[in-house]
């Protein structure tokens, strides 16, 4: 393939397995549209937010699923609804506030109004106007408001996290996540109420799948993230496991910090910095929490929309919001738990300096994704390599493997090529 410079119309896989990934999967707009349909709008549960973001009746948050604007709202009955932010009349994206409190949704264009479940309540001039003793205009007699609500999504809530799907036929949320991943989901969201700490948002000029791959790639942290290595948070002797659901679409990278002494193995690349000490060690003032049950970091990818982060005391959701094949918005929602002490809240906030668009560690990820996309765009007939740990797919008890990436593309091909 290396001498081939013909640009194919569609991604071409030159192996039966997924150890070589065609660049075209990241550069093709048609593929992107198909992904939105097959992976975001059908068959999958997507992240929308945390219950803690909308605590009161009428509270709402505007967000997206794929590239469709939706509103997560707590109704008058306290239940959480998710509706599409497109008026049933003329299609306007009527909700402009990012969050707020509402008794109903009104599209300002023609004042069509909906209750908080998305049911159409009323239409101005439905019965026309009376003029000279005659009724003029108005909607046809057979107009039924019940047929013209906002698109109402199915909603699933678990442990304070809210997911939704446009697909009325999709399997249950629990089946979607699968028992292997549900175990780690419930570890982090174990029923304690969550406390919202705030947001970090970045626009990354790269294909959205690259962020999924980033959190399915345990090869890079000890190499790219020099800060991790320099200050001892990443060590080659960390115990770690890679696990997937049965479809290989979701994954967890589970690691437990090594207690090894000075001579413990590091990557070598950065060993010259081993003597470095932080001027202020509070960045890494880690306190072991009982709910961890061992692992000091669990990074979960719930395909396709969200990453669930526990890195020592820093916990967050990272929402993937594509906009075109070559860009996505990455929205981090940091939180704590309602029984956190003030010291624990401060600890979580301080450790958050490692993450997000300005993070000591995460800033690296956004940059490499941007430059990967640049490489793909210039050489769309080529492919990348994901052969670390072999070409097969399966759980491992080490981190020297790209098995999770191969697993995701095996699933991707099944969804996209049928």
């Amino acid at each position, binding site marked *: 393939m290396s001498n081939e410079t013909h640009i194919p119309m569609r991604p071409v896989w030159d192996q039966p397995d997924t150890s070589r990934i065609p660049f075209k999967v990241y550069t093709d707009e048609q593929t992107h549209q198909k992904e939105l349909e097959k992976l975001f709008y059908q068959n999958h549960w997507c992240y929308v937010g945390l219950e803690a973001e909308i605590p009161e009746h009428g509270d709402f948050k505007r967000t997206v699923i794929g590239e469709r604007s939706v509103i997560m709202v707590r109704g008058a009955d306290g239940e959480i609804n998710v509706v599409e932010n497109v008026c049933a009349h003329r299609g306007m994206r009527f909700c402009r506030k990012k969050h707020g409190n509402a008794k109903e949704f009104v599209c300002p264009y023609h004042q069509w109004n909906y209750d908080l479940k998305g049911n159409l309540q009323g239409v101005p001039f439905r019965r026309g106007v009376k003029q000279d003793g005659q009724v003029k205009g108005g909607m046809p007699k057979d107009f039924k408001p019940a047929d013209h609500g906002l698109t109402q999504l199915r909603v699933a809530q678990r442990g304070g996290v809210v997911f939704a799907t446009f697909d009325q036929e999709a399997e249950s949320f629990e089946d979607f996540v699968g028992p292997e991943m549900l175990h780690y989901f419930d570890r982090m969201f174990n029923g304690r109420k969550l406390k919202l700490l705030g947001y970090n*948002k*970045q*626009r990354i000029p790269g294909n959205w799948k690259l962020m999924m791959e980033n959190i399915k790639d345990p090869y890079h942290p000890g190499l790219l993230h020099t800060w991790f290595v320099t200050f001892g948070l990443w060590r080659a002797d960390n115990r770690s496991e890679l696990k997937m659901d049965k479809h290989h679409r979701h994954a967890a990278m589970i690691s437990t910090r090594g207690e090894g002494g000075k001579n413990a193995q590091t990557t070598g690349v950065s060993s010259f910095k081993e003597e470095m000490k932080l001027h202020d060690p*509070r960045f890494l003032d880690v306190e072991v929490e009982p709910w961890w049950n061992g692992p000091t970091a669990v990074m979960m990818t719930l395909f396709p929309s969200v990453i669930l982060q526990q890195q020592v005391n820093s916990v967050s959701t990272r929402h993937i919001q594509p906009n075109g094949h070559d860009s996505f918005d990455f929205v981090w929602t*940091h939180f704590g738990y309602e029984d956190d002490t003030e010291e624990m*809240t401060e600890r979580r906030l301080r450790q*958050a300096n490692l993450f997000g668009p300005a993070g*000591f560690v995460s800033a690296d990820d956004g940059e490499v994704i941007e430059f990967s996309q640049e490489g793909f765009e210039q050489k769309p007939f080529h492919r990348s390599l994901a052969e670390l740990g072999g070409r097969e797919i399966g759980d491992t008890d080490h981190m020297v493997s790209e098995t999770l990436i191969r697993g995701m593309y095996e699933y991707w091909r099944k969804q996209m090529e049928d």
Partner: protein
Amino acid sequence: MNMEIYLQLTQFYQEYAANVDAAEWDSWIEMFTEDCTYRIQARENHERNLPMAALSLEGKGMLKDRIYGITETIFHDPYMQNHVVSAPRIKSLTPELIDCEANYAVFRTKNDGIAQVFNVGRYIDRIRNTPDGLKIESRICVFDNDMILNSLIYPI
């Protein structure tokens, strides 16, 4: 208001901009007090009283650690900064302490690129008048952008 302190403060803001634009990090650190606060926070968090910030540093030690990260560990595309800082607005003034604000716009230029509007916002400051001159006790950079353009490496 004392004209001399206003001119001093104006000069201080311009020196700050010159230091960050020239990547004079040692000079940048020396513009702060020992127990300073330095924060870069989205306006959305600020206005909703949510404590999360893109960067939240307390004390000169953390400032030094940030500079070490910028210069030694963080992998990023090199870029230049150009700050345009408005005249300061003094909100309250004592001989020791000035509460003041100024708007800023930061343009980013990459090696192969043209200048982009990178970050626009407001400095919310508490500045201490010390025997060594004016020092920042607290600077919160509250930015209007909903999104950071990929990553934010250097101080604003």
